[in-house]
């Protein structure tokens, strides 16, 4: 080692011409990356007013990646490296990397399909499989969701392409369905009027499209009713809480019974049923003991 280093004459390497070339390469690199960032910033500011958040992000990333590659090529060219040989080597390496990273390439191509389909964009609330969250970013290989309890979920683009995706906030208004059961003894006309009045009185419920009310059928312990209320998508929680609370309050005040199934538990086939005792009944009279135990 000492011999090798001893043979190198550093004075021959760090000539003024070499130092000047290196300095120029550094300047090209710094100025080039600055220019790329500047172009991306200007394009974002001036030309993207009509684009969605997702398209803006894609355009911004494309400018930065392509610009970055061009700057690196310019630096290598300035340093006197033969780019044809380098690109040839890069081609061979590319094939090897391509074979080794089929999944990643699949994700990139799936990502392109996803962007062109415009099924969702940044800020939408989507459900993929059992995961629901706000689309946080759409990247080269994956999309990232921020869940409502503030977790970040990364889903590969290929998974999204091949699975069912529900965009919850695509349209400005939605319908919320409430499944309600009332006792068989109730007057269904009165129940219907009460439920529609609740929908009309709630300021968050839309007047049009009209609320939907369907008597779904005769259930095990109740007559099952579906009440569908249209609302503006941003009022989801407020509508859900207010309507359920109002239905309970109104039914209680009008004496409309909401039945619920009763379950009796047995501790096993060999045991007796649980004893049931009426606690608020009048106390039973004490029967005097026959044989006078007080003695």
């Amino acid at each position, binding site marked *: 080692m000492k011999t090798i280093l001893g043979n190198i004459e550093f004075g021959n390497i760090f000539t003024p011409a070499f130092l000047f070339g290196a300095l120029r390469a550094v300047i090209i690199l710094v100025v080039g990356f600055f220019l790329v960032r500047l172009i991306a910033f200007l394009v974002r500011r001036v030309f993207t007013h009509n684009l969605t958040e997702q398209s803006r992000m894609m355009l911004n990333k494309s400018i930065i990646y392509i610009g970055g590659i061009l700057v690196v090529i310019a630096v290598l060219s300035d340093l006197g490296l033969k780019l044809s040989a380098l690109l040839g080597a890069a081609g061979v390496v590319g094939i090897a990397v391509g074979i080794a990273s089929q999944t990643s390439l699949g994700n990139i191509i799936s990502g392109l399909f996803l962007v062109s389909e415009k099924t969702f964009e940044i800020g939408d609330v989507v459900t993929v499989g059992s995961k629901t969250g706000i689309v946080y970013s759409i990247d080269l290989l994956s999309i990232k969701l921020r869940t409502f309890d503030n977790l970040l979920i990364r889903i590969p683009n290929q998974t999204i392409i091949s699975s069912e995706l529900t965009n919850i906030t695509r349209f*400005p208004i939605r319908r919320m369905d409430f499944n309600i059961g009332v006792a068989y003894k109730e007057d269904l006309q009165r129940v219907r009027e009460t439920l529609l009045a609740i929908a009309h009185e709630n300021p968050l419920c839309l007047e*049009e499209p*009209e609320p939907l009310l369907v008597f779904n059928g005769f259930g095990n312990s109740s007559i099952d009713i579906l009440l569908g209320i*249209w609302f503006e998508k941003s009022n989801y929680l407020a509508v859900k809480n207010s309507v359920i609370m109002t239905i309970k309050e109104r039914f209680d005040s009008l004496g409309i019974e909401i039945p619920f199934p009763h379950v009796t538990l047995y501790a096993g086939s060999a045991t007796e049923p649980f004893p049931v005792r009426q606690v608020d009944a009048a106390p039973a009279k004490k029967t005097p003991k026959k044989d006078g135990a007080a003695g």
Partner: protein
Amino acid sequence: MRGSGAREEEPTTRELWEKITSFEEGQARLWHIGTIRFWIRRVTEEWFIAFEETGEYRAHPAAGEEREPPPELKWNRYVAGKTAKIIVHPVLPDRPIVIKPTSPVKILPDRGSRYFIHVPVWISIMEGSSKNPLLLQEHPGDFLSSTWFGDPDDGELCFSFTSDLYKNPAEREDLPLMAVCPLNIRNGFTSILDFQRICVRVPHLQLYSGPRYLCTNEVELIYRGAGQQSHITFRESAPTIEPDLKRIALPRIPVNRNIIKKSFEYIKSLSLY
């Protein structure tokens, strides 16, 4: 209904709305217009504003009477400047209003008519002089339910209001929190125009104040067929409802004189389950 006998004692529409009210330190004043009551209090360069829905209509509006507010009010607090003056002003709502005529109207092809509808106004509270006012708060003059106009995927969120289509603005009592909107409806299609809902795009309208009425500029709607967009023209000048009208509010969303948008609709059922 406000009778003509009572009119002499009441402030005119113009007197009610075009008043700049000065406050002293710690002073509280009450406004009671229609069924809405609100207090404004000035304390050390801050404004305290509280609204209350009374549910009872007050025929003689109170406009800035000095009155001690009840203790249970929920105040909104604004840090302001040294100007101790308040302007209470009517403004049109910030969304289009879908008017449901009490009885549906049918207009024959190539025929038209001029109607007057009543549009509820909001109360706007501003600080400062009439030349350079700063908005503090807006409050609806009446509860308006929300509705959707158009298809579920590309319609628009509107307020809903039931009003008759009057041939004369004097047919209806002149409530202080209503503006009269003159509508010229023309059927420019080959079949009968039979509509149950009409969308009036009030954010594009100007508001005028006269001795008796609040009113908007005139709107002309030309029907072009079922499901088609209508041709809407907003007249630039004051309407010919009463003389001496003065413009008091510009459109919230200025547009060209003519726009093309869907304006008539039949009530559709989306209950396909």
